[in-house]
């Protein structure tokens, strides 16, 4: 535990750790200001297929909707911010030349790597919680509250969630988002144990995420067949908490698959780090 807090202190003493928080705040505020300025256009585009047949009243473009909208960008920019720390946490010791110093101290390698992994997960959780808080706080401030309308335009489907249910659904969705992002963190962490500099793990992780996302979305049978084997397919399972009815079985399956990825990736990192030759 002491090691974990030590690693956490080390991580949060670096200014680069706060780049992610700063950029997330900037992205969220910019998005919300732009959405506020072009609210009518967004509403028209969003409800186009239904506006021809229904008169729609009420505050559709509210803080909850904006939060869900911004969450959709999770799988692109949040992984990048996660890799900034997760891809650096082990490799930076090699870059700075402190790895030998660290490993000749009494704590075992196993304890060191576990503490570093827990710190990575702590940072990942903190980043997603920060995104949630800033999205919801500014969203409700700029756009007010209301029922949440999720427009699944590709499926031509609208799901309506009453306002009273929205906070709990959001809590579950963000918890799922944290769970999804831990897989990205685990990949970057594994790469970080393999590399001796931070650039490789950051680029490597982003390459894996982007390639998997692209492959999983190609509308060809071969890639559709492949998609159940790509972790990125399950990363958007947070959206299912905003569906009606909530598909609990699918959620449990996705969470389990992502959890198994975490266990597998950490186990490999654990073995690699324990066998790491620091003498040469």
């Amino acid at each position, binding site marked *: 535990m002491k090691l974990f807090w030590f690693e956490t202190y080390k991580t949060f003493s670096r200014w680069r750790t706060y780049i992610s928080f700063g950029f997330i705040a900037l992205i969220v505020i910019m998005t919300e200001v732009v959405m506020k300025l072009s609210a009518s256009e967004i509403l028209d585009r969003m409800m186009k*297929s239904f506006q021809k047949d229904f*008169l729609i009243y009420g505050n559709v473009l509210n803080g909850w909707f904006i939060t869900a909208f911004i969450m959709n960008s999770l799988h692109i920019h949040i992984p990048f911010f996660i890799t900034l720390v997760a891809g650096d946490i082990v490799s930076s010791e090699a870059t700075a030349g402190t790895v030998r110093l660290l490993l000749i101290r009494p704590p075992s390698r196993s304890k060191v790597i576990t503490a570093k992994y827990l710190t990575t997960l702590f940072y990942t959780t903190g980043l997603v919680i920060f995104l949630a808080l800033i999205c919801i706080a500014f969203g409700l401030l700029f756009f007010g509250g209301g029922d949440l309308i999720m427009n699944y335009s*590709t499926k031509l489907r609208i799901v309506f969630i009453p306002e009273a249910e929205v906070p709990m659904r959001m809590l579950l969705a963000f918890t799922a988002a944290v769970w999804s992002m831990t897989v990205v963190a685990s990949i970057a962490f594994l790469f970080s144990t393999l590399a001796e500099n931070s650039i490789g793990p950051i680029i490597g992780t982003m390459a894996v995420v982007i390639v998997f996302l692209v492959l999983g979305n190609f*509308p060809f049978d071969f890639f559709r067949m492949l998609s159940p084997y790509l972790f990125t397919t399950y990363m958007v399972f947070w959206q299912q908490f905003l569906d009606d009815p909530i598909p609990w079985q699918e959620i449990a399956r996705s969470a389990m698959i992502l959890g198994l990825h975490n266990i597998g990736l950490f186990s490999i990192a654990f073995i690699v780090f324990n066998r790491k030759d620091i003498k040469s």
Partner: protein
Amino acid sequence: MKKLLLLAGILFLLSTEWIPAQEDASRYLDPIEKKYSGLRDYTADVNVHFDIEALKAPDMQARLYFKAPDKMKVESKRIFFLPKEGGYFNPSLFKKKDFEMKLLERLAYDGRKAVRLKLTPMDTDTYHKGFVLTIDTDRSLIREIKISPSEGREVKAMIEYGMFANFELPTHIHLQLDMPSDEPGGMKEFTQFGQKPKKITGKVGITYSNYQVNVGLSDEIFKDTDPLKPK
């Protein structure tokens, strides 16, 4: 001579078929117009129940304000969807001067005498391609409205009435929707290419209650009636 008789016979048969078509169908709307001529305004509580696969929503409630001839406003603290076609009752919607009318058939509807009329808008630029009304001629009530808002779209409204302040007003409108959707706004996703546009099909039940009739609604109430206005 035989040929002439045969021709005359055919002409006679055809002429009897023409009778309902040539009858002044608009006369069936006169009693309705007269019946509701005293209806200046009404307000009512509305409950909308959706049974549409593409729209997963709980029942929605609102207060509806109507003032003759065509002012309408909905007041709701929450998000509210009301079908544009057949969603609320406007007795002056079918003005004789706006439509070409044709009697399609006489029938029995709920054990009462009824007629079915086809109304085609005079103005060809309008969004509506036409209506088919089923009118209970015994009670002078529109019981069914089949609306074809545009190509491929169809809405059927079945109306039940109750008596409120000497006016028969809808207590329940049962809508059947069959509407192809427009393309979703914005750019198409890669996986959407080649897909046929999907349809919005299903049923909507609209229940009206707590009517207040001819209370003298002011025009001020209808000033801000823009639906989906961002805050």
